Structures are given as C-alpha cells and as structure tokens.
C-alpha cells in the first residue's frame, strides 16, 4: 500500500470502487459543499472536487476538499495545470496533505476559452503527465520538482483522467501507458456512452497488461434530459454520445427523460461490470448529486464495503 487513501484500500482489496464528483460553488458558500456531500455519504468511496471546472472560477478545490474531509468523506483533490505553475501546485499538494487529503487527480484542464475568463493566460508550466511525475517524486523520492529535498512527503494516491473516445484513438492506450510510467495509480475515464468503443480501448489496455498496473474507474453520467445529451454530444470536446442514445432519449416524453437517462446510466454500469479490467465506477452526476444513491442502489453497487 503506497498511501493511506481509502480509495486505494478499497481497490487493493479487490472491490469495485465507486467515486462521484462535486463541483464547488461559485461563491463563499461552504454549506452548499456540505449539502452536496451529504447526498453522497455512504454511497460512494471518494468524491472528486473539481478545480475551476470548465474554466469557470469556483471555490478552490483545496478549500472545498477540506470541507468535505471535515464532513467525514474522502475527497479526491483535482488539480489542473492550467491555472498554476509548478510552485503553486506543489505548495497546494503539501498543504492538502497536511489537511488530511490523500487522494488527488492530475489534469490539464479545459481551455480558458470555454470559461468565464477567456482572456486569462493558460499557464501550463507543466502538463498533466509532468504533474503526475512531480507528485510521484514528491511522494516516493521526497523531492520537489526542482530537485530539492522535501521533508514530510505528501503520500498522495495519484489519479489521472483518460479519454478513450478522443483522437487519435490508437494513441489513447499508449497515452495511458505513458501516464502509468509517469506514476499514476488510478484512472478515471471520460463519461462512457459508446460502450463498444470503450471495450475496444480496454482490449488495447489489456493487451499491454495496463489494467494490472493501475486501477481503471469507468466514468458514467446520467443524462438529465434530451437537451443535456445533445449538448454533450455536440458541444463538449472529446465526448462521444452515439446516435442511439440520443434517439432513445428523444423517444420518451420530456417528463420521462430524466428517468430514461438514469436507466441508461445503470444499464451502462451493469454492462461495464462485465468488462475485464474495470476496477470501479466514477459517477459524474453534474448538479444532480441526489441521484447518485439511486444509481448505485439499482446498479448493485450498494452497500459500500467498509475497510
């Protein structure tokens, strides 16, 4: 065991892990964080706390993670390379660990173009790959990225994202391998709607034995409406929502679409459970945290194991 992370323990024990996510509020509203966390208590093993998600300013993920930790849940601190240089990132990591946060996710982040500050500089002093490497070295070699020794190494369980649906497809497995070589411990994938394509990716993953080198959590999202499905299909870069999903959503009346979305999500989880190498699920119910419990329940993911 590399860390004290609950997520790592659950995965190491061979359980299907479940994570979900919580977008911090756009304002100093700590109760909103607590409210969202409450929905997930006992339902998931860890909660991702996004870092200025879609390049919109929000409460810092470090602060929100701390609140969640205080509530007795396990946050996954998301860190994007877009907003901070390597000094700031390392400082935050040490700080986070000092506050009891032991799991993090290294990302490059959406481009500022998509957010509310398109005029802002995209920092990208380091990229997500280099961030993984940096955190690993902080943890295992106990050095800063600049080479200096650090005392009190942050024992972070290191995660990263993978998108099996983006192009070039053949590079997607290689890129995962590269992240593993950089030191990643677990992966959360982009939302899976196109299960066939995901399975093809997993074939590649298994062919190189990568599923044995890190834990792969399959990402799923319940669609709230036909509009949301269409939006994801057309407007969210790197998202693959097949036509039949859209058709299925449009085949039911508007008031039933939310239920249909949940059904699809549950069916997807059930299908993915059978895929070799899937170590758990990352359920992204964006601004719909209250539905996670139902999804987990109906997908047979409850109760959560106690470690």
């Amino acid at each position, binding site marked *: 065991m590399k860390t004290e992370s609950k997520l790592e323990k659950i995965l190491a024990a061979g359980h299907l892990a479940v994570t979900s996510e919580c977008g911090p509020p756009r304002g100093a509203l700590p109760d909103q964080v607590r409210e969202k966390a409450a929905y997930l208590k006992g339902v998931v093993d860890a909660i991702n706390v996004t870092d200025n998600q879609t390049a919109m300013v929000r409460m810092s993920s470090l602060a929100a993670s701390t609140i969640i930790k205080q509530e007795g849940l396990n946050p996954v601190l998301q860190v994007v390379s877009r907003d901070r240089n390597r000094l700031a990132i390392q400082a935050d990591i040490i700080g986070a660990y000092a506050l009891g946060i032991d799991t993090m996710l290294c990302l490059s982040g959406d481009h500022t173009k998509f957010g509310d500050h398109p005029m802002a500089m995209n920092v990208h002093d380091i990229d997500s790959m280099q961030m993984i490497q940096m955190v690993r070295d902080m943890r295992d070699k106990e050095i800063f990225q600049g080479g200096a020794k650090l005392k009190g190494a942050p024992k972070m369980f290191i995660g990263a994202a993978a998108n099996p649906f983006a*192009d070039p497809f053949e590079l997607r497995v290689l890129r995962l391998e590269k992240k593993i070589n950089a030191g990643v411990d677990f992966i959360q994938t982009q939302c899976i709607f196109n299960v066939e394509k995901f399975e093809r990716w997993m074939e590649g993953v298994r062919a190189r034995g990568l599923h044995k080198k890190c834990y792969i959590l399959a990402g799923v999202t319940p669609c709230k409406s036909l509009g949301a499905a269409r939006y994801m299909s057309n407007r969210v870069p790197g998202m693959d929502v097949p036509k039949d999903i859209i058709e299925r959503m449009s085949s039911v009346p508007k008031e039933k679409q939310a239920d249909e979305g949940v059904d699809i999500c549950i069916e997807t989880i059930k299908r993915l459970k059978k895929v070799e190498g899937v170590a758990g699920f990352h359920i992204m119910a964006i601004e719909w945290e209250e539905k996670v419990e139902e999804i987990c329940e109906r997908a047979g993911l409850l109760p959560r194991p106690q470690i």
Partner: protein
Amino acid sequence: MITAERKPLEELIDYVKPFKRILLLGCNECVTVCAAGGRKEVGLLASGLQMALLKSGSNIEIKQHTLERQCDPEYVEELVPMIDGSEAILSMACGCGVQQLATRFKDKPVFPALNTQFMGASERQGVWAERCQGCGDCVLGITGGICPIARCAKQLMNGPCGGSTGGKCEVSEDVDCVWQLIWDRLKSLGQEDRYVDIMPAKDWRSGGGSGPRKIIREDLAE
C-alpha cells in the same frame, strides 16, 4: 518570420492626434512579407489616417517612408536627415523596429502602428500560422518536426488532451490538433517510439522565463 497586423485605426488616431507632422515608417522586411507594414500598407494607412482625421476636423501632414529594416541601427540612421520635419514617428514595423527607433530618437515619440503577432510560416497566399514560440530549447527533433509548444493550445508536451476530435483542437475546428499531426508524422517516419518517453517538465529559463534574452556571438561582437 515575424508576423503582425495593423492596429485599429481608432487607436492610431489617438496616438497621432496631438501632432501636426508625423512620419509614417514602413519596414521592408518581415512585415512587408506578411502584408502588414510594407510600402503598400504605409500608403493605405496614410490615406486612411488622413481621411479619418479630416472627418474629425484635424489635418496632419503624414510623411511616408519605408526602411529596409527598422531593427538595424544602420538602416534607422537613414532617417536622420528627414526626422526633424516630423514631430512623431508612427512605425509599421514589429515591436523590435519600434524600439530601435525609440532608442535612436530619444526626443521623438514613437508609436506602434502594428500589433506584433507571432513567429510564423506562410501556409499559402495571405495565410500565416504560428510555428515557433522561441522557447530556446527546441524539441522538434523529438516531436517529428512539429512543435507542441507553439501549436498546442495547452502546450502539452506528452500527447493530446481528451479534446482532440477528428484531428482538430477542442479550442477551434480551424486549428489542427498538433498531437494528431505529430503522431501521424511519427507513424509515417516509423518513429512511434519517440512518443513513449515522457518529456520532462520544461526548463523555461531559455524561453524567457528569467528575463530578456540576448545572444552574443563572441567572435563577431565588438
């Protein structure tokens, strides 16, 4: 080559309005090649400024001249005989040229007429695209001759982000995903293994991270 685009007329008018006589100065180097500040653009801007000023009731004498290169002091020296006739200089060179003028003519206000853009290559007639960020530590040897620093919106050095779709960047459908280009090229060269090694975090000192850069060729420098 350095590329540039003309600033909005409005901004330029604000610069020159306080003066009676200005020198509008073109440069026959990069900015001519990218059709931003050569003799032709000098002529167009002189007429445009003149008309816009006339409309607002003012009248300025605009002298037009174009130097071979504004970024070299010897060429700038050509202006000495004519500079007294002008109260200010509006330079159609890149930022280097503007500063060279400001250095040489300490008592003359110098204004930029262009927004200097980037180091680019011409794709075809009338189209220039960014190709280099002058990072001072070239990685093109590893990336199949295609630069991820200048051409990836996130400067990713280890592969495409999750937004790469159909060979295009998530930022705009008009922008190629540079990692798609790199990968395609590595494949065609049979150099896929170049991708495997992690490119470590970059030392930005060579890229201007530690202040303005200077090159001194010891054998040439006097």
